[in-house]
């Protein structure tokens, strides 16, 4: 989404939380297992993404980046306060009943790795790989890249850029939905989590890794996670601060990110 439409969506983290709450709702109504509810939530969020893109975000985009920022910031505030109204400020978790998910295994004698976290890491890598393959080889992937490169030229060749943007938004929202569901499964979700944690850390990973580099983002995420774990070793309240510290350090020392794009900057 950042790359294709050059949109910085300030409501991105909140959408993950919305996905988590949709998950809570879906499970409460249908009593389906958590893992099965993920595709349902992803599909629901993809549809929401397409509609939101075609209705609100597209008209904001055509009026410049300032308007887009204002509109997504407005969305973010509306979502956070709306969730607080309907679900209260209490945090909730997605109950994971399956023993596979709650179990963990040991590496050596010190390091405990829950299966759930390992599964999430693998799924994150698979999703990244899948996205890359999709953008490179599928029909819509080509369309998305074409529109990102040169909107007018793609339009002349018969591509409806608004529809393509809608598809790109649907993919982005679907990916965010996976993240939101995982967040609910590992710990809990609460209305303000979207910006307090998800958006700011997602942004920090992107900057640490280097803007526009998909694998850099993964590396940035890993570095942030390690920094937080190390910070938490000294004092539990240093956890978040350590993450921000690394982010600010990178911003000062190597503003182009660890994996830089070379000639572009």
């Amino acid at each position, binding site marked *: 989404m950042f790359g294709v439409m050059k949109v910085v969506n300030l409501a991105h983290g909140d959408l993950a939380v919305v996905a988590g709450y949709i998950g809570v709702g879906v499970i409460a109504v249908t009593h389906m297992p958590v893992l099965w509810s993920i595709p349902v939530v992803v599909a629901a969020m993809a549809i929401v993404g397409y509609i939101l893109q075609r209705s609100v975000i597209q008209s904001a985009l055509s009026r410049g980046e300032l*308007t887009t920022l*204002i509109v997504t*910031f*407005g969305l973010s505030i509306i979502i956070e*306060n709306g969730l607080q109204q309907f679900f209260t400020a209490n945090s909730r978790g997605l109950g994971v009943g399956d023993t596979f998910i709650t179990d963990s295994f040991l590496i050596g004698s010190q390091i405990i790795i829950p299966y759930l976290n390992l599964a999430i890491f693998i799924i994150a890598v698979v999703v990244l790989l899948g996205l890359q393959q999709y953008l490179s080889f599928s029909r819509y992937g080509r369309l998305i890249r074409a529109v990102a490169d040169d909107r007018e030229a793609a339009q002349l060749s018969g591509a409806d850029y608004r529809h393509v943007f809608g598809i790109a938004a649907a993919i982005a929202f679907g990916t965010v939905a996976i993240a939101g569901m995982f967040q609910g499964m590992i710990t809990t979700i609460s209305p303000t989590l979207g910006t307090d944690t998800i958006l700011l850390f997602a*942004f920090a990973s992107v*900057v640490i890794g280097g*803007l526009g580099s998909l694998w850099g983002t993964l590396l940035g995420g890993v570095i942030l996670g390690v920094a937080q774990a190390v910070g938490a070793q000294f004092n539990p309240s240093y956890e978040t601060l350590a993450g921000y510290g690394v982010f600010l350090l990178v*911003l*000062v020392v190597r503003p182009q990110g660890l994996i830089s794009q070379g000639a572009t900057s």
Partner: protein
Amino acid sequence: MTVNQTTTGQPDLIDVRVTRSRRNTLWSGLGALIVIVVLFRLPYFAGPGTTGIMIQGLIVLTLASMWNLLAGYAGLVSVGQQAFLGLGAYFVLIPAMHGITPWFGLVIATVAAGACALPLWWLVARLRLGYFAIATWVLASAVMLVVEQISSIGGGTGMPLPGISGYDPAVLTADTYWAALTVAVLAIGGVYLLLRSRVGLVLTSIRDDEKAARSNGVRVGFARLLVFVVAAAGCGAAGGVLAIQQLQVVPGTAGGVFSVQWTAEMAFATIIGGIGTIEGPIVGTIVFMVLQQKLQSYNAWYLMVLGLVAIVIAIFARRGLWGTIDERFNIRLFPVGYHLWAPGERRGRKRAAAHTAQ
């Protein structure tokens, strides 16, 4: 002889005049003065409840004017202004704990918040638009986390403000109101003077074409730095007033001084009123306060409604309420641009929008 030559060489330019505004600014200046005097007298005939609401409104007005300067004139969409609001509150609290009166603390808060903006600017100066927005948000979170670590100023729970315990409540409310009014008037006046100065011209040139401005030797970075520092100082002053009004300083994101809701309020008020005009934040704050009073029994609903209104205005009426009024009637209470008078054009005749610069 030479004088004659220049005049005959450029015969078309004789009748051209350049003024600040198409209309006479004397009347709007007089109007502003009357409004300020009436507002100044308010505590004498309004109850403490009304005065309290007015203090809130003046705080929002100060914040909105600062956010308007950042986003509307310098293109710096900051989502982290709550950092400076919070720092301002703490810079009133800390001197008060050492026996300095909070009223003088407001001056300290203004200067100190501006000073804090210098190193923070260095971190985010390279970033543009969306990245700038999120980076300021991260900075605000980091500032909050650092402040919450310091237990001597209340840590994560906050502290009551010492130094004003002996006041009669009515006198305190009135004094706080006058402090808030002074801060708001200085903020708007400061923005007005800043935009009329060379810096205003520089900002306009950056807004129109940054590369062209740079290549003409305009100090783009310095102008942005100045705006960032001024906006931080203004938000710091507003935060100081907030600390005095609430008689305590509470950190935290939920309802505390570091809450992003503050930036939401200042941004929404600015957008609804009209971003990029000095009058916009004033109009927006009035709309904001009316909505807040109408919807306050519905908790956070007022912020959702405001957000929705702001989104609709940002998409369908980009220049906001004041921008729409200005387009229709060509009124500027605070003229910061120039008007080039066409030969023979007189005041009050047909609107010639093409001649109006900025």
